[in-house]
């Protein structure tokens, strides 16, 4: 599936491979166990290069959001208005995704994550209120 390829995609390949399986995969330091996201070279706590990848739960709570009414790009115009939501995942990292619900998110609201195609067929994080289908 499409991946916004950049100079650092070698260190983010495991994340994008996980996305293709509808899994949230993040880096974990092999030495001190710290989780980190977005992908980076060193553990900022112990400075180890050694890492594994772990698949997280897809449960989180709303940290903040914005409803975009202006179309900042003609490609995205059909989606406007849409809601971007910043989510604290249960294990401690954050994910920015679309919020798919009739209403606005609220602070601390429980949400669940899935990866779904956007208008360009790129898989992106989409959150819905926990329990919603």
């Amino acid at each position, binding site marked *: 599936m499409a991946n916004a390829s950049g100079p650092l*995609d070698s260190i983010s390949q495991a994340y994008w491979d996980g996305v293709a399986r509808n899994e949230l995969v993040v880096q974990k330091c092999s030495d001190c166990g710290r989780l980190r996201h*977005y992908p980076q070279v060193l553990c900022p706590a112990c400075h180890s290069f050694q890492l594994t990848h772990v698949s997280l739960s897809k449960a989180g709570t709303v940290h*903040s959001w914005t409803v975009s*009414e202006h179309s900042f*790009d003609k490609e*995205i115009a059909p989606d406007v208005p849409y809601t971007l939501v910043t989510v604290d995942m249960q294990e401690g990292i954050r994910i920015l995704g679309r919020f798919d619900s009739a209403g606005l998110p609220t602070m601390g609201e429980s949400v669940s994550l899935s990866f779904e195609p*956007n208008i360009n067929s790129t898989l*992106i*994080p989409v959150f819905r209120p926990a329990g919603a289908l």
Partner: protein
Amino acid sequence: MTKSEAAERRAALRAQAAVVGIGETEYSRNSSKSAMELQFEASLKAIDDAGLSPHDIDGVIPIGITGAPAEDYIINLGISDLRFSALIPHGGASGIGALQAAAVAVASGIATNVLVTSGRNVSSGARAGARIHQMPQFHLVTEFEREVGAIAPAQLYAPMARRHMELYGTTSANFAEIAVSTRDHAVHNPNAIMRKPITADDHAASRMITDPFRLLDCSLESDGGAAFVVTTSEQARDRRHPLVEILGIAMGHPDSPNSITQRGSLTSVGVAKAAQIAFDMAQVDHSDIQVAEIYDCFTYVVLCQLEDLGFCAKGEGGDFVMDGKLRRGGSMPTNTHGGLLSQAHMLGMNHIVELVRQLRGAEGIRQVPGASIGLATGYGDMGDGGVAIMRGAHNG
């Protein structure tokens, strides 16, 4: 080196460097000149204002991604011996970062006259939402957030403002006060793009861009150039204009500086780490600040910085601005040029130029009466910050 030794060394830089020349082009939304032409036009004005010849420049710091490299300054200005150059890649915090670098360079004798300069022509080119994805510091946003729909800076910053509103009860009316007071300053500035007065009702009626930011919460896209020249305080005395020198200056970066999403606290920015260092170095208190030029890419960013600078506690910024203190005649007139919201988006270089004007004491109708100590901030990319506290000698 201990913390107190470092503070002593910083204190030794207090009042050692000065902004001796300033220059700005006309600001517009339709310049026919290239970014490079605008940059050189502002540069020549600043050099002339300093009473110098272009041949006297021996240090250059170009600002912004449209900046010409130092080599272009050598050939265009005819510099025979450039001794110092630097790049400060922190967006709207680059001007303060460059002022800091230039101050260190002249105070240490590495260079004598350092030119800091910027020029941009964005009205005919790509909008901010396209430009940021060309910049390396946005690579995480480009890879992980752009396809989600977070395209432009407004969308990256809006969740910071929303979080602040939810935690502290900050309202859009608080943002409106900043938009309205800034516009009123611009009304009195002939070189401001937006000079029609606005009210809080106009703000509330302006279209929603990305909640909570309405159109009148957002800065302009503009064309122009701004520049200044830094030399030692000693050299700057007895020039054409009263001495304006740097008392305290510091830069600070937020945690997770290249991803707001991953930042522990969404409601604080880099200048929070710089503020106390700058105030200590300057040996002034907040109550000494008579005029402030605070980076205003969005209204909320002014409110957040007022808190992070220590003018009020975190969460109190909304109430803090509502008594009119930022307005003309208020206790701390802020963005007296009209800022990025209403004068022009010149990367905060216009904030530094305006502070120098105010501290020279001859700004006419815009002059904050008796202003001799003031402050300018920068805010770049996803929250890089800088603050400079300066003093003008015109009042003694």
